[in-house]
């Protein structure tokens, strides 16, 4: 008997009679004032957000807020005049020294400040984690109230890797003192396009 058969046999023998799944259809968020709610929550978790008209405004804010002398990468063709386009074929280690990554999110979640990203919009899986600073662009109308709507939107999802990112990386492992910038980005900025 293989280990697999042994374990599955023990599970079958020991599991209790079947209990049905509960109805979870009542879990829904409230869709009022999502942009403001999102911005308030995101600020509370240590991020900064800007409500802007278009990509041109994003470009200006980036040059004002970040050190453009350092390596800045993006997946957005609209920004490729100013910044380096991410290649999905090079060794991920080659992104070790990026200062800022500017990428687009599928949508964001008002109740917790998180954005939803899959590897296609990341350029490479490592990008939003290895950069010193992360900037994400999201459309205002794509903001959902809670994670329930978020998973409805994601559906089964045809991706190899996807993730919610809700703010700059953080730790409070030393005496519960909050420190922004653990292993991932030191800061996270979200540009919400009206």
């Amino acid at each position, binding site marked *: 008997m293989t280990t697999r058969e042994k374990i*599955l046999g023990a599970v079958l023998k020991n599991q209790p009679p079947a209990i049905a799944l509960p109805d*979870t259809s009542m879990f829904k968020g409230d869709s009022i004032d999502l942009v403001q709610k999102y911005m308030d929550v995101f600020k509370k978790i240590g991020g900064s957000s800007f409500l802007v008209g278009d990509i041109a405004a994003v470009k200006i804010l980036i040059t004002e807020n970040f050190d453009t002398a350092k390596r800045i990468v993006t997946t957005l063709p609209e920004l490729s005049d100013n910044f380096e386009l991410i290649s999905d074929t090079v060794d991920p280690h080659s992104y070790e020294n990026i200062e800022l990554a500017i990428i687009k999110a599928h949508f964001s979640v008002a109740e*917790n400040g998180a954005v939803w990203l899959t590897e296609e919009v990341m350029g490479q899986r490592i990008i939003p984690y290895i950069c010193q600073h992360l900037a994400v662009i999201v459309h205002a109308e794509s903001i959902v109230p809670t*994670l329930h709507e978020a*998973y409805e939107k994601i559906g089964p*999802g045809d991706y190899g890797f996807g993730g919610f990112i809700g703010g700059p*990386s953080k730790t409070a*492992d030393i005496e519960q*003192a909050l420190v922004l910038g653990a292993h991932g980005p030191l800061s996270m900025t979200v540009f919400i396009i009206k």
Partner: protein
Amino acid sequence: MSQTKTKDHAALAGAFIKDEERVDWHDGALWYIREKRDIAAKQIPEWEQLREAASMIKSNVISNLHEYLLQFEANLKKNGVTVHWADSAEEHNEIVYSILKAKEINQMVKSKSMLTEECHLNEYLEERGIEVINSDLGEYIQQIDNEPPSHIVLPCIHKRKEEIGELFHEHLGTEKGLSDPTLLTRVARKHLRNIFLTRRGALTGVNFAVAETGEYVVCTNEGNADMGAHLSEVQIASMGLEKIIPQKKHLGIFLRLLARSATGQPITIYSSHYKKPRKGQEMHLILVDAGRTRQLGRKDFRDSLKCIKCGSCMNTCPVYRKSGGLSYHNTISGPIGAILAPNLDMKRHADLPFASTLCGSCSNVCPVKINIHEQLYKWRQVIVKEGYAANTKALGMKTMAWTLSSPGKFTKAGRAGRWFLQNVPFVVNNKFNPWYKQRDMPEGPKESFAEWFIKNENKKP
């Protein structure tokens, strides 16, 4: 990092509480997290319904685990992930070793995983020439101090920043006396970034495994799981069988509960959904039993398998807060650890279900509504029946049973007790009586209720 048991919970807690200033600080730090949890929970009007739904989903998982495991396995394979099954900690460790050996990898970076702590994976691999580095900051600190984690979410919550500064001075060459949390974190960030960039093998734990899609979710605040995984050639995930959830939409319920219960955050910073390997990368997943199917067969205790490892039962527990996680001498400490551990080794962990006041606070905060305090009480009965209770407790209970077995013995014993307390209190108020430690014996009443009743009954007109 061996966990050779030398003393029981009471003795280890006794050592911890000698430093009163530290105990007060530890107690306060954990209560502060409990308060943050309350604030976060109160912002969600449907919080209680979410807990109920999560608990019911987990009941469904436990009762259909066989089917879900098969579904999960089939989907993992479809996604290009290699699936392994491990019956025991040893088998799990052997599998990890064989995966690394096949790729000639002798250095691995690990993100937070209580399961691999439980399996003593690091020691196993190190004995075979493979270096393992824990990348969660708290776990890293515990590793360089050669201590197991004292809390599942906050591994070094029992340490003061000065002690951590001293460890960094010794191991990372920081200036002596440096204890600022931000500066220490920056030093660790720099050091561990180099580890992530140079390790070809990465191992993570699993928070939720979705049967429907074959993907698994790993939650961190630091970003360490992703830094390790996305830079590795070989990615390994180790999970206990009970981490399965049926459908993807259920993640909405569990992720809303997890971080709010754990730290009061609205969501962990990173909730990463791993489905398929990166081009050129190998992905392995190990399904580990290690006692879980045995616990599944214990009617009174199987609900402990619902746990999503948020740590809220520890933060609220008056015994945990004042005795420290290491006093539980088990990877998972606190109330949840005390109901999981006796299943693993009843004799070794016989003391843990007694490390509780049975106040029930743990059950009240549990996001999946495990009846933790009731299970603690039930474990006590099993442990006494199986003959594993500490001698003093067993003797006390035998005497009690003998005394209570007849009204005559009870009356005599009561009279004797009152006489001792009134006339020679020093006979019981001394260090040979364990009850007297930190407590005063009560003043004995002059008469028992029965004596009073008989006297007054006769006075009736």
